[in-house]
Each structure stands twice: as structure tokens, then as C-alpha cells.
């Protein structure tokens, strides 16, 4: 039966119609071969727009649909569904982007109109070759994997667990809580971070629907949306979680009487023993033994007082790596951020000059549970009288990070307030612009100003030591545009946020897309802000881009909701773009097997042909490109479809 094509051209308000003469294009399209009806409409994606297609399919006996509008990424699904409602196989629809690929990127109206014609022509040529694609549906595993147990991961985990989904929460560190666990107070309300976080942390611990894997990494993810097969690697903490009761007597009894090793959690300003917990309320309250510093591991000749002191003999020096396999239907990546390493920008003298700290170190210093018990001290133990806070360290700077880290301004204000509040020191904030664009933020900014904090709009040139351990800041006052000096006792560098160093590996393991800096990419900034480009994988928190706690929590709950809607749906469609092999054409030359990255194709010795396991096929089409017998065709990307499309964009 010959093809009957309907072409639908979207105005998208003025987004398209403002540039493209849609009527002209419609007129042109209506004369293309096999086109039965061509229409334009204000918003094709709207209910009436879809109805129009459904109606025409019945009325005009359409068996092919071309929609010229935004992009397939955005609305491909919408129009496939419409076709389905009209009784067509959804894959007999071809979407043509005349917005993103034309009206939005073309200046001249005539040119935009001409381009739209050729793109639509290509779509029409192509759709002629579309074949119905039958996708199977797979049951969805209702478990969810969450990678990263900071405030984002914890929030998402609780939302899902409370709704009865089982969550596997994987944390690289020995203890959950992420960066937030390090904070003292949160802006702008100044309520204490732990008061918010600790209840959530223990809720995680106590929720039977949450399996927590700390000190662990996700090693491998196989399978596809709805049916992921996850391999988790649990690094040995040498204290057995099943036996430990969290009395911490091992730390008591460690042969090191005093903590003498740098505490990572305390950002270098505190010390710990070889056996440690990050902080007293840590979850899980099971210490970690660090083999780098533990005598038993370094020499093998330790008296093992920790073990002797352990009531349950939970200490086990022979613990090994352990692989755990879990099956999940959805994945949420909440891998968080790291702060900018201030020593990369030498002008601040960070790491060289005493009394130059970062905001995250200050958080620990301010934290009553922190190394200084909340006391603000210089290296020599004295109390600073003059403190400088320097904003935008590593941010808004082409040499490091061009972007604004969004949270620093508020952190600086918070610290200024707390320092004044606790030690009454004179505080000066060196800022570029103060960005206080959140609920109650501007008010907070005002409040701090009234508290008498000095604000200098300045660009710091360098910090040099001066008499009695003081620091001289040389800077350009960008309001007076003069170079000035300022002497202080303490400098706090307001460092920006960055993706973790290992973002590439994480991206690869989770098969996500990242920006060039390494932030996780969302499918669409507005329409799908917590959905990744890879099916069944969602993202939340500062791993996507720097954001404060309220935004992070909001995103986490959104991601949880997205994941829930997927696993509650119960079924997913199989990958539609899989390949098929025509065994009457296949010569058994094995070239496809050689290029398949997923070992989805195998050789049938006795039939002397190749066979595909579509469960493993992820639809890249590499085998289609090489098949020298023309026996392989990839759904929705057959040779004929692509040849037709290429010809279409070029000529009548």
C-alpha cells in the first residue's frame, strides 16, 4: 500500500513562525511526493495539536507522519504517542527540528524559510522508508540506586524509602552526610546544619528500605533502563559493621594516645588517629582503619590495643574488598562537588602563609563539634582582631572557573556574621558583586551590612606577610580604581565549587553526559532538569551545578519523584534503535561481531550466520555501518532512511 504522509508544521508561537514563513513551507510540503495533507498549527505539542494528527490519521488514512517543530529529544515521545493514539505504529513518525536547527539559529527570514523547506523535504523522503518498530516492554525492577550520600542522596533516599521503594545508597567516604556534615550553620536562617542533617542521617540508618554501602564505589552498571545490574565494590574498613556497636573504644585504645594524622574531614585543620570516625554522630558509627597510617598495616608488628579494647572483637585486619551485586530499575546520581584548591592561585599564598584559610576550613573551625570546638584561632592560638574574607576564589575567573559558584557570597556573609558574633573581630569582605538572589538572602545581606562588616569591591593582587604574623592584602579597589593595601590577622578564601577530580570515571561508569567542566548534564534545563540524557538515570544536587542546600534538597526530591514514576510505572519499552540481521543475506563474515562494543552479536557456527541478542544491543549501529553483506539494519536508522534524508536536505 502506498505511503500517505501528513506533514505538521508548528509555529511554536513566534519561536518558529517569527522566522520561518510557515505558510510558504506548508504550501511547499503539500506538493512533495506522497504528502496527502500538510498543516500548520500554533502549538503542535498542545492537546489540540496532537488531536489534529490523530483526527487526520483516521480521516485521510495517513500512514506516515512528519512533525516539523522543536526537537525529537524534546517532543519525539509526544508525537509518537499521538500517532499511537491514532492507531499508527509510533515509529512511523519523523520529527524535523525547524526551531533549534533553524528558526533559532538563522538570522535571515528567507534563509530560515528555505532551510525549513529542505529539512522538511528530508523528513518526508526519510519517513517513506520508516518501518513499524515493535518494541517489547520489560518489567521494571522497583529498587533504586543512589550514588552519593550527601544531603541530596540522603533526601532522595528517604523520599523513595518512605514510599516503600528499596534504595541502595552508595557512599565513597566512610560516613554519610557529605559536605553538609562539615558545616556549622546554614544561611540565611543560621540554623545549625547538623540539627537538620543528623536526624535525616539516622533516619537513613534506621530505614529498613535503605541498604547503605559506605566506603564503597559503583564499579559497573550493566543492563538498561528498568533493569540495571549494578556491581558495587566495598573497600575494607577493617572494622566489621555486623559486629561493631559503635562504642569507639578502639579509638580510645589505639596505641597512638594522641591524634597525629591530618583529618581529611577537618579539611586539614584537625588531626585524627589511624582508626577514626569523621565526627561523633557519624553514620554509620563504625570506625575506619586507615592502613596508610596504622602500625599494624605498616609494620605488621602492632600490639593491637584497639582489638584488645574492642568488646565485640569487630576489628578485623584481614578484611578484603567485597563485591556486591544489586538489581535496580532506576539510578540517581548525587555525587556532589569538591571545593576549589586555593593553592592553584598562588597570589593568595594559601598553603604557604599561616592564617590563610578557606571557607570550608572556617566551617570546621566554627563547628562546635570541630577540631577547635568552635573557637576561631590563629595558628599561634591567639584570637584574630581583623579578618578578611575574599570572595570569588577560583570562580568567575577565566584561568580557573568562568562560572559563578552561586553559594560563596552567602557563605561569606554567614562567616562574617559569625566571626563578629563570636569574637567581635573587624571583618572585611572583598567582593566582586554580592549575589544574594534567594528567599531571604537580600535581607540577610542587609542585616550583615548593618552589623558593621566592611565591604570592599576589590580585586586582590596578592597577599604578603608583614610584621608579627600579620598579612598584607594588596588589592585594587574597583570602585575607587586605586591600588590599596589592607593589613589583617586572618584571611578566609571564599573558594568556589568544582566537580570531583574523578568525574570522568564516574560519568563513564554511570554512562552520563557532562559539561566540559564536568558537571552532570540534564536532559533539558527546564523541561527535564533532573533527568539525564541516559534513560533511567537521574541527577540531583551540586553534581549538576553549584547550588545551595534548599535547591539541592528540592532537586533531590524531584529526582526521587522522577525515579518513582519510572519504577511505579512497572514497565519500560526496550531500546527501539536495536538492529536486526537478515539471515538470508548474512554471510557469516563476522565483521559485525568484531565491532560490537556490547558483545550483543554472536556467531552461529552451524548456520554460518551472525545472530543478535537485542537485550544486549544498545543501538549504536556500528555493525550496520560495517555489514558488507547489507544484512544488518538498525531500527529508525536504516541505510535507506539515512540515504533518503541526506538526499532530502540537499535536493528535490
Amino acid at each position, binding site marked *: 500500500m502506498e505511503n500517505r504522509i501528513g506533514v505538521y508544521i508548528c509555529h511554536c508561537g513566534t519561536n518558529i513562525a517569527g522566522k520561518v514563513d510557515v505558510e510558504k513551507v506548508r504550501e511547499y510540503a503539500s506538493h512533495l511526493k506522497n504528502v496527502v495533507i500538510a498543516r500548520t498549527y500554533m502549538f503542535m505539542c498542545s492537546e489540540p495539536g496532537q488531536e489534529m494528527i490523530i483526527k487526520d490519521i483516521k480521516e485521510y488514512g495517513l500512514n506516515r507522519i512528519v512533525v516539523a517543530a522543536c526537537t525529537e529529544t524534546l517532543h519525539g515521545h509526544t508525537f509518537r504517542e499521538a500517532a499511537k493514539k491514532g492507531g499508527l505504529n509510533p515509529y512511523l513518525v519523523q520529527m524535523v527540528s525547524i526551531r533549534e536547527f533553524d528558526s533559532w539559529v538563522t538570522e*535571515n527570514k528567507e534563509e530560515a524559510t528555505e*532551510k525549513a523547506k529542505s529539512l522538511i523535504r528530508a523528513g518526508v523522503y526519510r519517513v517513506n522508508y520508516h518501518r513499524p518498530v515493535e518494541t517489547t516492554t520489560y518489567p521494571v525492577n522497583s529498587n533504586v540506586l543512589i550514588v552519593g550520600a550527601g544531603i541530596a542522596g540522603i533526601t532522595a533516599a528517604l523520599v523513595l524509602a518512605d514510599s516503600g521503594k528499596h534504595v541502595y545508597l552508595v557512599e565513597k567516604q566512610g560516613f554519610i552526610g557529605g559536605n553538609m556534615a562539615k558545616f556549622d550553620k546554614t544561611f540565611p536562617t543560621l540554623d545549625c546544619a547538623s540539627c537538620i542533617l543528623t536526624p535525616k542521617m539516622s533516619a537513613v540508618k534506621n530505614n529498613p528500605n535503605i541498604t547503605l554501602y559506605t566506603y564503597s564505589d559503583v564499579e559497573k552498571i550493566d543492563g538498561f533502563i528498568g533493569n540495571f545490574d549494578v556491581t558495587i565494590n566495598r573497600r575494607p574498613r577493617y572494622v566489621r559493621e555486623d559486629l561493631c556497636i559503635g562504642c569507639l573504644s578502639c579509638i580510645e585504645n589505639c596505641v597512638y594516645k594522641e591524634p597525629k594524622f591530618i583529618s581529611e574531614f577537618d579539611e586539614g585543620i584537625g588531626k585524627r588517629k589511624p582508626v577514626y570516625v569523621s565526627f561523633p554522630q557519624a553514620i554509620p558509627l563504625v570506625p575506619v582503619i586507615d592502613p596508610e597510617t596504622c602500625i599494624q598495616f605498616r609494620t605488621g608488628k602492632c600490639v593491637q590495643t584497639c582489638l584488645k579494647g574492642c568488646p565485640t572483637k569487630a576489628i578485623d585486619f584481614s578484611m578484603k574488598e567485597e563485591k556486591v551485586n544489586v538489581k535496580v530499575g532506576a539510578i540517581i546520581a548525587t555525587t556532589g562537588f569538591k571545593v576549589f584548591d586555593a593553592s592553584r592561585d598562588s597570589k593568595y599564598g594559601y598553603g604557604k602563609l599561616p592564617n590563610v584559610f578557606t571557607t570550608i576550613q572556617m566551617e570546621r573551625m566554627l563547628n562546635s563539634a570541630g577540631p577547635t570546638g568552635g573557637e576561631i584561632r590563629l595558628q599561634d592560638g591567639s584570637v584574630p582582631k581583623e579578618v578578611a574574607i575574599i570572595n570569588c576564589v577560583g570562580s568567575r575567573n577565566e584561568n580557573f572557573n568562568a562560572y559563578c559558584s552561586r553559594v560563596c557570597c552567602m557563605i561569606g556573609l554567614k562567616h562574617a556574621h559569625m566571626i563578629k558574633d563570636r569574637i567581635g573581630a573587624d571583618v572585611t569582605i572583598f567582593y566582586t558583586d554580592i549575589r544574594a538572589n534567594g528567599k531571604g538572602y537580600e535581607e540577610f545581606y542587609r542585616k550583615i551590612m548593618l552589623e558593621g562588616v566592611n565591604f570592599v569591591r576589590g580585586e586582590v593582587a596578592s597577599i604578603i606577610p608583614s610584621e608579627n604574623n600579620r598579612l598584607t592584602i594588596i588589592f585594587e579597589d574597583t570602585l575607587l580604581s586605586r591600588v590599596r593595601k589592607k593589613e589583617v590577622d586572618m584571611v578566609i578564601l571564599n573558594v568556589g565549587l568544582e566537580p570531583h577530580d574523578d568525574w570522568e570515571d564516574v560519568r563513564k561508569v554511570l554512562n552520563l553526559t557532562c559539561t566540559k567542566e564536568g558537571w552532570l548534564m540534564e536532559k533539558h534545563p527546564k523541561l527535564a532538569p533532573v533527568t539525564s540524557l541516559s534513560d533511567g538515570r537521574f541527577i540531583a544536587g551540586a553534581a549538576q551545578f553549584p547550588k545551595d542546600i534548599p535547591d539541592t534538597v528540592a532537586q533531590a526530591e524531584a529526582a526521587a519523584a522522577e525515579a518513582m514514576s519510572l519504577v511505579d510505572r512497572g514497565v519500560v519499552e526496550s531500546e527501539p*534503535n536495536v538492529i536486526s540481521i537478515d539471515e538470508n543475506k548474512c554471510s557469516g563474515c563476522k565483521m559485525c561481531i568484531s565491532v560490537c562494543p556490547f558483545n550483543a552479536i554472536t556467531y552461529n557456527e552451524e548456520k554460518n550466520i551472525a545472530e543478535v541478542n537485542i537485550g544486549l544491543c544498545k*543501538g549504536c549501529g556500528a555493525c550496520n555501518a560495517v555489514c558488507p553483506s547489507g544484512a544488518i539494519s538498525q531500527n529508525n536508522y536504516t541505510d535507506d532512511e539515512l540515504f533518503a534524508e541526506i538526499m532530502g536536505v*540537499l535536493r528535490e
Partner: protein
Amino acid sequence: MNDNFEPKIVAIFCYWCTTQAAELAGTSRMTYAPNVKIVKTMCTGRVDPQFILWAFRNGADGVIVSGCHPPSDCHYEDGNFKWFRKYVLLSKTLEQAGIDPKRLRQEWISASEADKLKKVITEFTEEIRALGPLKHPIREGGD
């Protein structure tokens, strides 16, 4: 010479990286030459050298293929490398057959590099404009 010559250019982009970059360029309203028409495949590994010859045969003066950055951006392990290998061998063949290999351009443009996409498209269009229309028997095939 070719004052009113408007190059015809086909751009074959992989879905994951360069097509996303093109969509980002759109949402960011970055304007570029209308000469370039995008055809998408799931992966550059899908690109068959036949497509390139087919494009030239049907009137393309230039072809760009762009995918995910090597080594590890490809969502199908190494589709980008598979394309690159074909590209190298094909370019040499084009040259032998008397088609300037500059008319086939290979790029890596990641999902976030809309600016690079704009730059590449603009550059390439000008380069092809300078080269002039493709004159080769491959054109006589045009039916």
C-alpha cells in the same frame, strides 16, 4: 568568482554529544550559516563512508561529521574511534579520486560546546565557500 555561490553542507552528528550541542546552540539562540543541514545518527560509529559519497553525489559541497570527544565521551565505548578510522581512510580515497579531502571535515563537539559548534560551522562554511562548488564526475551521477 563565486560571489553568489552558497555552499551546500551536510552535517552528520551523533545524538549524544554534537546533536545536543546543536540543540543547545538553538536554545542559546546562537546564529550560524543556514548552509549546514543536520542529519543525526545515534553514534558516529553508524556513519558509513557510503553516506559521504552519497552526500557529495547529491550536491553537497562539504560534509562535516562530528561526535563525542575521544577517548571516553562516546556512549558506545568507541564509536567515535570507529568513525575516525573510516574518516582517515576515506579522506585519502577522496584525494586519490580528485576530491579535495578538506571537503570532508571531522570534529569532536561535546554536548556543552555550543560555542564550538557555531565556530566550526561558520569556519567550515567559509572554507567551502572559498574552495568553490565541487566539480567532479561524482556530480554527473545526479539523476
